[in-house]
């Protein structure tokens, strides 16, 4: 390129940049704050680029370290799920007739389609682990205490949204595992007292799980829940910015030997750390997707339950284990324990975040998280064997589980 041409391009670029800066103001950065991509207050008196640089230098609370990364990891996995989900929806057909073949096509006919699908499935598992770790950190760190109660509530709603995402997405491949696990789950809901029948009908849209169910699950998964998640996330980040990240208990009591709000700046330290964690998480997700792909089971057959029912989502494992070992009442008790967490900030209002000061709460929390982990381990071992008797829809008394038997159709 000749010098004069280079000069012209540079001039044009500078003009463009100047126009952009002049036409926006720092308030636009508020959107980035909403989306959780910036910390700290925005100085709206400055032009956008200077306000951006100033915001980047914002400092985190002291001693904020790796534990505080789980929230970000959850968010990253959510973004991965959204991105892979959008790509999948380019090819997926949400009807009972075409769903299975469209998934087959994605997995075998489209370049890197298998990666999108397996990454989506694995991220759905990893996000549950990440969100529970994040929740555990907040819980045991006492970061739900006033003035952060609303944020705790919003966080719990986000947890339910994540579970709902997984539950609705589970059905979409429309193979035997998807179909019959969903049938069992909706049957369980249908057996709740009072509202059970109505809820079951609402979820299914038909007396049995059918194309009607698929349609509404798809609509919830792809339209309803993303909006709910977006709204809740924005609220979550806003509240977080408003009250600031909760300092650790030792810092709070001046025991860390550093001023309370003199942590590392967001840029470059925290950003580099977050980025490292993020990169590793995505690498782990891709590794899991490659080494343990989500198989395509036989196509859904509403007349014949499969002989072996694999679970590909850990919440399904957990639910199944709870039912198997504790029955419906045990499952309900565990749910209540989880719901009790909602009202937690009402009872635990003291500003002291040390665990020692709140042993009962700590005990309850421990029970919940440990219970979850144990149920997952137990559910992992359970391989479901079905007979028509056990999986007869709608009128079964309880989920029964037999020991694994391999299917053999050869005479």
């Amino acid at each position, binding site marked *: 390129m000749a010098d004069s041409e280079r000069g012209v391009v540079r001039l044009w670029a500078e003009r463009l940049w100047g126009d952009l800066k002049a036409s926006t103001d720092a308030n636009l950065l508020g959107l980035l704050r909403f989306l959780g991509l910036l910390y700290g207050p925005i100085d709206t008196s400055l032009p956008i680029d200077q306000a951006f640089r100033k915001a980047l230098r914002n400092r985190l609370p002291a001693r904020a370290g790796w534990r505080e990364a789980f929230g970000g990891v959850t968010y990253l996995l959510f973004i991965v799920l959204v991105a892979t989900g959008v790509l999948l929806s380019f090819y997926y057909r949400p009807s009972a007739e075409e769903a299975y073949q469209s998934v087959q096509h994605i997995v075998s006919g489209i370049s890197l389609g298998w990666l999108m699908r397996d990454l989506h499935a694995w991220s759905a598992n990893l996000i549950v682990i990440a969100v529970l770790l994040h929740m555990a950190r907040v819980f045991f760190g006492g970061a739900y205490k006033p003035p952060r109660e609303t944020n705790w509530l919003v966080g719990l709603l986000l947890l339910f949204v994540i579970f709902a995402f997984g539950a609705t997405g589970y059905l979409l491949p429309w193979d035997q595992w998807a179909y019959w696990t969903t049938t069992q789950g909706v049957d369980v809901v249908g057996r709740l007292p009072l509202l059970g029948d109505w809820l079951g009908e609402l979820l299914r849209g038909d007396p049995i799980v059918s194309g009607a169910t698929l349609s509404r699950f798809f609509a919830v998964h792809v339209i309803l829940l993303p909006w709910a998640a977006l709204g809740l996330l924005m609220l979550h980040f806003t509240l977080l910015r408003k009250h600031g990240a909760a300092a650790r208990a030792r810092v709070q009591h001046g025991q860390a030997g550093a001023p309370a709000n003199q942590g590392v700046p967001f840029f470059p330290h925290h950003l580099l750390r977050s980025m*490292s964690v993020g990169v590793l998480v995505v690498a782990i997700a*891709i590794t899991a997707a490659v080494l343990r*792909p989500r198989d395509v089971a036989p196509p859904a057959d509403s007349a014949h339950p499969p002989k072996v029912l694999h679970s590909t989502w850990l919440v399904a494992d957990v639910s199944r284990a709870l039912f198997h070992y504790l029955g419906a009442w045990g499952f309900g008790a565990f749910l209540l324990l989880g719901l009790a967490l909602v009202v937690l900030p009402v009872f635990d209002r003291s500003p002291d975040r040390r665990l020692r000061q709140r042993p009962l709460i700590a005990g309850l929390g421990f029970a919940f998280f440990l219970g979850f982990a144990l149920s997952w381990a137990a559910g992992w071992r359970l391989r479901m064997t079905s007979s028509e008797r056990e999986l007869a829809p709608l009128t079964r008394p309880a989920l029964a589980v037999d020991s694994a038997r391999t299917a053999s159709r050869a005479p």
Partner: protein
Amino acid sequence: MMRASRLLVIATVLLAAATRVEAQTTSQPSTAPATEPAKGTGHVGAARAWPTAGADEGNRCLVCHSAQREAASVGVHAEHGVRCVDCHGGDSTSRSLPGAHGNGFTGRLAKAEIARLCGSCHSDPNRMREYGLPTGQLAEFRTSRHGQLLFGQHDGDAPTCTDCHGTHIIYPPYDARSRVYPTSIPTTCARCHANAQRMQKYGLRTDQLEQFRTSAHGVTLFQKQDFAAPTCVACHGAHSALPPTRTSISSVCGGCHQLVAQAFNAGPHGTATRTGRLEGCLGCHGNHDTQRIADTTIAAQCDRCHGGDTRLHQVGIDLQRRMVRARSDLRSAEHAVERLAATGQRTADARFRYQSALTDYLQIAQVQHGLDLDRVEALEGRVSAGSIELDRMALTSEETRWEHKLLLLPVWFLALSAVALAGLSLRTVRRTGADEAP
């Protein structure tokens, strides 16, 4: 006080009993408008007038014969208006005993007479046409061993119609309450044939039902409720019950197992059966305790007769080896189809190939009864080829998946580099003091 209440209890009980009695005598089905009640018209064996559903007044037999009350409304004869007098004679309207037991009353009949009585309607095509029932039962029965004993030798222990079908409450064979419903037939026959005392006279064994229950046929019938399985009558005949002779056994089994019987008859064992040296199918399979012979025991079966002959012993071993291999090839073919499906490939073509292999495998089981070893070899070869082809398809698909693993190399290289760079950058930043508070 005590006495009064006790009297009250007794009075209530009596009243209830009386009400019940009244209710039962008045609960007659009236399926036709009340007509003249039918009267018994004569001796046993003569054709009777058409039975008509009588009015309540017409069936006073039940006033005394209360044990038969249920039979007046339950069962196929009651439903079609056959009443007491139609078989026993007498006058059902009479209020006096001599009157009721007059008019050609036959009372309790002898066994041979029972058969003729039943036959008086059930062998008459004109009567049975309306119900679509066959009319050859009595004629067949006369030819059966039971009939020969009853009519020929006047043996009082031989069965007659009522011994199998019931006396007063009879259900049609398709009714699950019937004594001749498929799953009930074996126990009905066993009422006599499992009774050691009764069978001693004829020198018959009594363990047939016990054996049948454990047999493949018995399990299919009783546990799987599959009525394609034979009951006693399928092999022995129902009314013409006779044990099959040595030479006819294969034909009896071949009635259902047609292709197997064809192959068997064409082979050396068929020849042996025709010349009386082998009891047909029973030679290997047993009669009442018929079992499937597992692939892995074929050679042992052959050795039971041919163990002494080295060549035939080897034939048995070869046959077993081929069948076992064919089965395991079929299993791995099935597994290959599942592996293919799991990777997301379309499986219509693979399933078609599997069906071909399955058909070939099923033919081996039939063909080997004729000991056509060349054909067995050919079929086994085809099952094997099909299985190899499917395995190849599954393997190709899995190799594609394996190639996905190569992606991990660049991914981890980039990830670790990024982390390393971040770490270095962080260290530089710290060292140059860029993290001091502004």
